[in-house]
């Protein structure tokens, strides 16, 4: 039904440009997550799709139609807001049916569709309450129900989970994913939480300062970040990024220690190039405590500063070339600060970025 296309979309407030000509194709029924730190323009982009902000330049189409000049009500989208924005003077039933009532649907249709949405979201017992009498999670569910009753072309979610406590957030995250599987529709979802982005998205759009940094599947963005920003933003704990220089086929850190340039990247670096060596904590593991036996690995002895046991794994804080780095210990044992452990660096998982541009040296 509806793919969404953004073409050279620009947003200016007066003279300040906050979104700099972004291009994005969202396929029909795709779940796309816009993620980035606050102020990156993700919410503004979503609001432009919704029609709540003017588009300064470029075009946005929903389906075949350019919607730049259409008011929100003519775009056939629905939106879930961060603060839910339920109508406080209406019952849950009235909240759900409001859009249909405005569209002048007959009472029987309204009842059927409202009941159907209530059924999907398990709201049947709450229909006569007002929003004030609901818990946070229930309000969230009503907000989603209000979005689905209208059978829109697309759902827009603006940080819908950030007002919930941690446990409820995980639960509602799952519900949103289930909902998308049940109600197949295009979804554009905005969040600053990379875990939400990873778990929900078919495709992630990483944004920063009004630019799109990378678009890809969660695994793609995780495994092949195009630059240091994406590398550090996606994944938790973040990727270790260590400045180094390429010399004689090795990556030399500022303290003189070195590891060989990963085999697959050998012909992509030049002698003397200033680089940033990136390695996820998952790929920096004490010998015998890795996820799998590393194929192409380097070994370094590192001093432990701090350890954070999480149960199935322990996060180890250490320093490499004077810079703090984090590793993981799978199948952990007790580790004391000051201990020195032999670490495997999984070189086949390592990343190398050009220090000047911050871009990955790998092109594919």
């Amino acid at each position, binding site marked *: 039904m509806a793919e969404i296309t953004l073409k050279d979309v620009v947003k200016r407030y007066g003279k300040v440009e906050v979104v700099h000509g972004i291009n994005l194709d969202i396929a029909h029924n795709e779940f796309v997550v816009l993620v980035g730190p606050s102020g990156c323009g993700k919410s503004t982009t979503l609001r432009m799709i919704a*029609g*709540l902000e003017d588009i300064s330049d470029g075009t946005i189409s929903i389906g075949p139609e350019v919607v730049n000049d259409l008011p*929100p*009500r003519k775009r056939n989208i629905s939106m879930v807001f961060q603060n839910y*924005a*339920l109508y*406080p003077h209406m019952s849950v039933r009235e909240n759900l049916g409001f859009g249909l009532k405005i569209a002048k649907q007959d009472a029987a249709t309204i009842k059927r569709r409202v009941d159907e949405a209530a059924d999907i979201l398990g709201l049947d017992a709450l229909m006569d309450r007002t*929003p004030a009498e609901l818990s946070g999670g229930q*309000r969230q569910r009503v907000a989603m129900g*209000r979005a689905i009753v209208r059978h829109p072309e697309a759902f827009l979610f603006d940080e819908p989970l950030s007002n919930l406590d941690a446990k409820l957030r995980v639960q509602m995250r799952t519900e949103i994913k289930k909902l998308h599987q049940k109600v197949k529709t295009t979804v554009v979802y905005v969040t600053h939480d990379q875990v939400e982005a990873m778990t929900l998205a078919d495709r992630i759009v990483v944004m920063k300062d009004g630019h799109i940094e990378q678009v890809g599947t969660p695994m793609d963005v995780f495994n092949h970040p195009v630059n240091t920003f994406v590398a550090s933003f996606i994944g938790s704990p973040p990727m270790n990024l260590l400045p180094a220089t390429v010399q004689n086929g090795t990556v030399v850190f500022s303290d003189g220690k070195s590891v060989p340039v990963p085999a697959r990247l050998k012909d992509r670096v030049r002698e003397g190039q200033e680089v940033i060596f990136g390695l996820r904590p998952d790929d920096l593991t004490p010998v015998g405590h890795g996820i799998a036996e590393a194929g192409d690995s380097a070994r370094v002895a590192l001093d432990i500063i701090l350890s954070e046991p999480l149960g199935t794994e322990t996060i180890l804080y250490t320093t490499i070339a004077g810079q703090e780095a984090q590793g993981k210990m799978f199948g952990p044992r007790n580790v004391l600060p000051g201990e020195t452990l032999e670490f495997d660096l999984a070189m086949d998982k390592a990343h190398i970025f050009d220090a000047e541009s911050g871009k990955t040296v790998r092109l594919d």
Partner: protein
Amino acid sequence: MMNGALKKRLGAIGLWVLTFILMVVMCVPGLWVVLTAFRPNGEVLAKPPVWIPENPSLLNFAKIFGVGVDQVAIPVPAYFMNSLIIALTSTAVALLIGMSGGYAFARYRFKFKNGMFLGLMLSRTVPGIALSLPVFMIWSRIGLIDAKLGLIIVYVALNVPFTIWLIDGFFRQIPKEMSEAAQVDGCTRWQAFWKIEFPLAKSGIASAGIFAFLTSWNEYALASNLTRSTDSKTLPVGLMDFTAQFTIDWAGMSAMAVIIIIPALILTFLVQKHLIAGLTFGGVKG
């Protein structure tokens, strides 16, 4: 040594005594007016004062309406209609402007917004009576002296800054996402206002209305300058009909005051539940 509980108790009693004294100060003059309305004139100035009327009667009211006495009736019905028309019309207009203005200040960004808002507030610092001479001169040129319209315009001007300020505050409390959600749900901006934002701000608009009405209903100084005859004289101005060259009919004046108070009381009671109806904003996480 006093223990804590006793101290607390004494403090509470002290507060009640203070409250009682304040209430006496506020209520006794009103009560006195009501009592005086039911006494013969002779009792009003009696020394020592007669607290409770000894021969309560409706004579003062009868005199005002010219029922069964030889005194010329005071044109209360005409004054009453004037007051009602002027107060209701000016309130309605002030509310309409207040709603538009309040909404604009709460929702839109525009040039000189703060300056304009400050200007509105500053206009409240000028006592209305200070403007009576210029208003009188202009009104006499354009023929608005002794006309209801003249007073209506003055009262609208008097009330608009306040209604804008009050209603702005209420619209500000309603998250703009409410109206956005309604627009995404299929409303025009206009529908979103009437179906979502207006019902939520209703109590604020009602309070603004009450204040505007009471201001217009009770205003005396400007009205006494700008009105001449039963064409436009309002009830408070009508009170002066009880002063003659050498005497003041205090009892009659009090009876008239009671007549003025009653509609205002009734209206306040009617709207009261809107004033109190604190809408809980459950639609948004606090």
